[in-house]
């Protein structure tokens, strides 16, 4: 479901003397249905960068990234939006809070964007918030004032509200206590069981071992390494 071959990435900082920062070269991997693959490597190895390229958040300048058949390198904005609506889910490392929008609504949004009935979407959102132990008194307020762990759980609820065929998870268990961590690992295992292809970043090796089938070391795709 995710097919990546020979992907390269560099940043050009035009306003800092045009410095060119090559950060990735020759990155290749694949993730099949029902499989969970972990991206590993030291800080700065490019784990989040690759994930952002798959999400379409960073531009892919070199190589090929295919998700459920769509080539993301050079894709039209419209096709990426459609992929995000129906196929590709992403749990980012931090929740982007929107003032005035209540937690319940933030969680339900991916379903509403797909045109699912509001009642059904909100019911599923309540189930997930409850499962992730977010106290009911917080559901109707904006997560602006939530703790880091609470925000992260809202983010996870949002990420798991839809049965995405392909999922990207950036540190889904960071800043969670043991009980909530276990809930998240269960959600991941359930998604795998229904056939989702998952690519994740887990600093927590216990979590990684519990849910991942394989590891891909991003350190192998650092630009110097590939040339040598």
């Amino acid at each position: 479901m995710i097919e990546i071959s020979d992907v390269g990435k560099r940043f050009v900082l035009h306003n800092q003397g045009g410095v060119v920062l090559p950060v990735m070269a020759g990155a290749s991997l694949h993730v099949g249905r029902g499989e969970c693959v972990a991206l590993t490597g030291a800080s700065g190895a490019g784990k989040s960068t690759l994930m952002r390229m798959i999400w379409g958040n960073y531009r892919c300048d070199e190589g090929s990234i295919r998700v459920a058949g769509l080539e993301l390198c050079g894709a039209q904005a419209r096709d990426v939006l459609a992929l995000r609506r129906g196929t590709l889910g992403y749990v980012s490392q931090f929740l982007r809070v929107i003032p005035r929008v209540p937690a319940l609504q933030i969680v339900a949004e991916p379903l509403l964007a797909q045109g699912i009935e509001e009642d059904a979407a909100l019911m599923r959102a309540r189930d997930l918030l409850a499962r992730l132990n977010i106290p009911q008194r917080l559901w109707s307020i904006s997560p602006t004032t939530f703790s880091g762990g609470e925000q992260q759980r809202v983010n996870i609820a949002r990420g798991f509200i839809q049965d995405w065929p392909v999922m990207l998870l950036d540190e889904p268990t960071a800043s969670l206590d043991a009980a909530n961590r276990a809930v998240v690992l269960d959600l991941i295992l359930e998604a795998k069981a229904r056939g989702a292809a998952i690519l994740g970043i887990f600093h927590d090796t216990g979590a990684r071992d519990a849910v991942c089938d394989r590891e891909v070391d991003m350190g192998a795709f650092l630009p110097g390494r590939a040339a040598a």
Partner: protein
Amino acid sequence: MTPLLQVEGVSKHYGAHLGCGDVTFTLWPGEVMGIVGESGSGKSTLLNCMAGHLAPDAGRVVFDTRMHGPRDTVTMTEAERRWLARTDWAFVHQNPRDGLRMNVSAGGNVGERLMAVGARHYGDIRAQAQDWLGRVEIDAGRMDERPRAFSGGMQQRLQIARNLVTGPRLVFMDEPTGGLDVSVQARLLDLLRGLVRKLGLSAVIVTHDLAVVRLLADRVMVMKDGRVVEQGLTDQVLDDPQHAYTQLLVSSVLQV
């Protein structure tokens, strides 16, 4: 699917001075496009060319009309353009005074748009006006007051109700949150965001505020000196800007 709006090679000069030059893009149904850039970069010029307020010197603006399919609005008659402006299009001005009739009641401001497209039944018009005032969070008890008595944020919400009551398919907005306090802006943005999603509207929003495009726009176009320097998915353009000017724009604001 047919694009809702296709802008092809649109240019507008003011004498020798370039307003906007050779702008091309396609807007699909349900998409929200943001236009950002510094003051004087040609954002309003471009928007006004698209909305039929200004005649471009060159280029086509093809809109998928309800009745006759894709038509070039630049070459259609003035009467046809005016009809589109009352039905399929809406235009939200930065200054609510430019989009409202200040000596007509709030209810009248909304009802008037309905009457312009042929509504005649007083009770229906009043009921629809009331429904729309509710949707933009204006208390029904204030329906008979004139907008003069309203705060800037309320006037702006009234302008939005007046514009959306006829069920337009494309909304043009020029700095819709421009003159408002930050907290009032947040409320308005939240309202716009909800309406755009619930009604499946397409919109083109001009703003110099990157937080506004981050929140509302699927795609964004960056203008400088009348030219489009970069366009694409909103989060990609903001998080991985390619052009020097976009990088400057993004780095000169605190995290958006």
